[in-house]
């Protein structure tokens, strides 16, 4: 655990109390991202043989939660980097794993393009195409809401490849790539969300992970499974930040001659926040344990953790704003940020509705 504590302390020192300023400015310092990237913290589960920290899902989860408590925008970039690394590990051939994982743990930043204008929850409707052309491939399409794209050196683009699918590593400076920042996103405002347009982008054939022609469903499920775990732990961080802020305020601020926390209705809010923190942490630990032990149940546990994390985080953030009232309503305040960031967690990496459909399917098939 001492390695985890070192990394958490390092994150505390690097981020400090600057997350509110980054949120207002809508930008993270690029040098911070590169520093964390070069330490392997942004994709900590990459094995040490590829230059990573070789963290378990649990250790990476605690890192992610800590980051999420400090700054959800930074956690979002971390999630993107982790998804990219996971896709490379799973779908890349040996040479691609060695090359790209070394880059991702060496300070280069990656973003992943899933959603398209006509393909959100229904990713099977995506129209981005990866077309072989001689010794090259040509990628054409449009991806929207690509987290971290503004900072990325590499864009991992998922597209149709024949009747199947492929993940392609696209250097962001390749001719034909346009990265257009999303203006003033509602939450995670410094996470570098962007629209990415790929206009006949020509790449060497070995940019296609594993040669492509892989099942679309497996590509998405693998990548999204990591993303769901990361967001679930990030939500644990949001809830922890809300709990701390609300408890501190309830201890310090007095109204009607006693601390807010001694007023029963406010005390009820604190209890609710504590329950949320415990519930989200435990469901995340459960899902990570299944992943760390190689259980086939890990995919559905990730959906459950993400769903529980997102719904509790959204509720906890609203509760924390209620406790702090106008003290927490200022732009950039930790609970104001949490309120906006947490809402976003309910719609990404599988909306609440999609999560419930997946969980219902699991019940019908197994219960």
């Amino acid at each position, binding site marked *: 655990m001492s390695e985890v504590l070192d990394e958490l302390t390092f994150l505390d020192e690097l981020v400090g109390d600057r997350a509110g300023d980054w949120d207002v400015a809508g930008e993270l310092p690029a040098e911070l991202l590169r520093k964390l990237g070069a330490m392997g913290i942004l994709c900590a589960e990459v094995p040490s043989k590829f230059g990573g920290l070789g963290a378990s899902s649990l250790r990476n989860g605690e890192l992610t939660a800590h980051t999420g408590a400090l700054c959800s925008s930074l956690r979002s970039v971390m999630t993107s980097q982790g998804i990219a690394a996971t896709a490379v590990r799973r779908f*890349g051939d040996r040479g691609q*794993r060695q090359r790209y994982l070394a880059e991702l743990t060496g300070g280069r930043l990656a973003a992943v393009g899933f959603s398209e204008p006509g393909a959100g929850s229904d990713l099977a409707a995506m129209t981005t195409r990866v077309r072989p052309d001689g010794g090259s491939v040509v990628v054409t399409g449009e991806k929207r809401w690509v987290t971290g794209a503004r900072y990325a050196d590499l864009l991992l683009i998922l597209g149709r490849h024949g009747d199947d699918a492929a993940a392609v590593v696209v250097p962001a400076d390749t001719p034909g790539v346009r990265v257009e920042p999303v203006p003033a996103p509602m939450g995670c405002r410094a996470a570098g969300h962007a629209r990415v347009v790929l206009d006949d982008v020509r790449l060497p054939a070995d940019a296609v992970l*594993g040669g492509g022609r*892989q099942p679309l*469903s*497996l590509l998405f499920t693998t990548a999204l*499974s990591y993303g769901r775990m990361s967001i679930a732990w990030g939500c644990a961080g949001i809830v922890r930040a809300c709990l701390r802020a609300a408890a501190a305020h309830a201890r310090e601020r007095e109204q009607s001659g006693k601390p807010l926390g001694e007023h029963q209705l406010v005390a009820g809010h604190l209890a609710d926040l504590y329950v949320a923190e415990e519930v989200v942490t435990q469901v995340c630990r459960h899902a990570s344990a299944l992943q760390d032990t190689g*259980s086939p149940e890990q995919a*559905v546990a990730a959906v459950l953790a993400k769903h529980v994390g997102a719904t509790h985080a959204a509720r906890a953030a609203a509760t924390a704003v209620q406790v702090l009232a106008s003290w927490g309503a200022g732009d950039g305040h930790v609970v104001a940020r949490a309120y906006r960031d947490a809402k976003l967690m309910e719609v990404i990496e599988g909306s609440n509705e999609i999560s419930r459909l997946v969980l219902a399917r699991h019940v019908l098939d197994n219960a």
Partner: protein
Amino acid sequence: MTTANPVTDAQTVEAELLAFLTERIKAPVRPDEDLFKAGLVSSMFAMQLVVHLEDTYDIEIVGPELTLDHFRSVEAMTALVLRLREGTGADE
């Protein structure tokens, strides 16, 4: 946790996979049955299958091995397991 199965002849792998699938799908499965055509494998279940094969047989299914054809039937998965156990994966 790796629960590597020391017995990896075709018959044993096939029997284990049939039992795993039958338990999950709650219906009998034939070794040559096309699981995708029969609608028996969802994306979530496909990932469960990959993880199950890796953990049970101490193999790594990555890169070019992740094609649908390798998971299309119990026979195909058995062949994949045996090949990867022998260390002759396409990625080696």
